[in-house]
């Protein structure tokens, strides 16, 4: 774990050493703010909660989170530093976990910077702050899920654009899998799969967090989802790190 944390720290410093971090945070806050205030009608609906905020959060993450994870491995491959990193006394698992933790910590920092929303609703009314905390926990888990996917796609290529597009595409499938677009199609053709698809919906599981429900199956789902994609990541790295 010590090795993973050292790698995570280097990686996190790397985000802030370049403009990437600041551009990302500004874009994230502007996008999330605009959607919540305008599209979500934050003030007009006259309720002291963050429902519109949480409604848009996973979609904004879907678009932006793969932009954080895309460099994790693709950049190492492009620069050749993967050869340096993986010939230091670390295991591939430690490197995969370290990089993932750095990206996750970065997402959590960006999410934490939305705190003015919490202050705002607390000034304007008396919201249930438990529900809000629950929603944030869900947000952290959703970002972790998308990051794990993006980290695995980043390991597959040295081209960051490909890593980004693949990451968004795969995350999109899991985001959308409980929506009628997918389930209606499956109900008609493969009813067995429709039920499975519903269970794999990242967004549906997030919505129960946003309503203030922390359910064990959801936690287990996110933990196994992240674990699975990090495992894929490690397998890909192990299989063709030198290519």
């Amino acid at each position: 774990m010590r090795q993973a944390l050292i790698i995570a720290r280097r990686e996190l410093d790397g985000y802030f050493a370049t403009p990437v971090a600041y551009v990302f945070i500004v874009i994230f806050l502007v996008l999330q703010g605009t959607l919540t205030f305008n599209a979500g009608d934050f003030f007009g609906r006259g309720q002291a909660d963050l429902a519109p905020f949480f409604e848009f959060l996973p979609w904004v993450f879907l678009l932006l989170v793969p932009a954080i994870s895309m460099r994790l491995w693709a950049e190492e491959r492009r620069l050749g530093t993967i050869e340096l990193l993986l010939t230091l006394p670390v295991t591939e698992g430690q490197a995969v976990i370290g990089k993932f933790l750095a990206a996750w910590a970065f997402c959590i920092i960006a999410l934490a910077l939305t705190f003015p929303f919490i202050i705002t609703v607390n000034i304007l009314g008396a919201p249930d702050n438990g529900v809000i905390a629950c929603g944030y926990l869900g947000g952290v888990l959703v970002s972790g899920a998308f990051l794990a996917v993006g980290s695995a796609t980043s390991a597959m290529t040295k081209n960051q654009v490909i890593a980004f597009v693949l990451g968004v595409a795969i995350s999109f499938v899991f985001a959308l899998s409980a929506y009628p677009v997918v389930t209606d199609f499956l109900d008609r053709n493969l009813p067995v799969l429709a039920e499975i698809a519903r269970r794999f919906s990242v967004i549906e599981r997030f919505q129960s967090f946003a309503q203030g429900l922390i359910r064990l199956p959801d936690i287990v789902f996110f933990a196994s989802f992240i674990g699975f994609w990090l495992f894929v990541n490690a397998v890909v790295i192990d299989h063709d790190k030198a290519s």
Partner: protein
Amino acid sequence: MAALIEIAGLTKRFGSFTAVDDVSFRLDKGEVLGFLGPNGAGKTTTMRMLAGFVMPTAGSAAIIGHDVIAEPVAARRCLGFLPEGAPTYPEMTVLGFLCFVARIRGYAGRALAKRVAEAIALTQLESVRLQPIETLSKGFKRRVGLAQALLHDPPVLVLDEPTDGLDPNQKHEVRTLIRRMAPEKAIVISTHLLEEVDAVCTRAIIIAAGRVVADDTPAGLAARDPERRLEEVFRAITIPPSLRKAA
């Protein structure tokens, strides 16, 4: 006593192409092995297998008795490795980068500061220690890679073209450094510069098309040519007889 480096029957195939074909050698303390060969002969692939970065198709490699596949982390602890092209993280400063490597190698606090300071002194990086690596010249970047490999004073050093991109003075410094460390370590360097073999190596292996075609002392190799020119020996060994007339 176990050899510091032991390679047996090492083979790597990429599809139907055989990059390294049944390479074997062992290296003891005090030896400096010059690894020679034309481009694409398999030098880098062999070194990568030794560092545990490329999985061999067949054969084995061990560093101080630690098999690089079965005990990769233990093997890498004893190894200082300079990969081809000396890759480093461009946005980090020299000091930040070396501190990162030192932490990964298990150093902390005062021991870490001492190790990093020593590595910086050995490779003469004092003047640029706070500069981002991407702003440095090629020679400095190469020395940062070298500093990273020397940092933990490893018993085994594997350096892929350590003097590539250095000016003649810097080359001289690096060779002096290698010679000074040599009695305590086993060192493998790959190079295209035949004078380098003469200057620092106690032994030279020439590989061509993945196979070892000569394994001798530099003096022994030179003696194969009537005029004792290493260059002629290298050409004679690595160019197939059928092509030699035309060349």
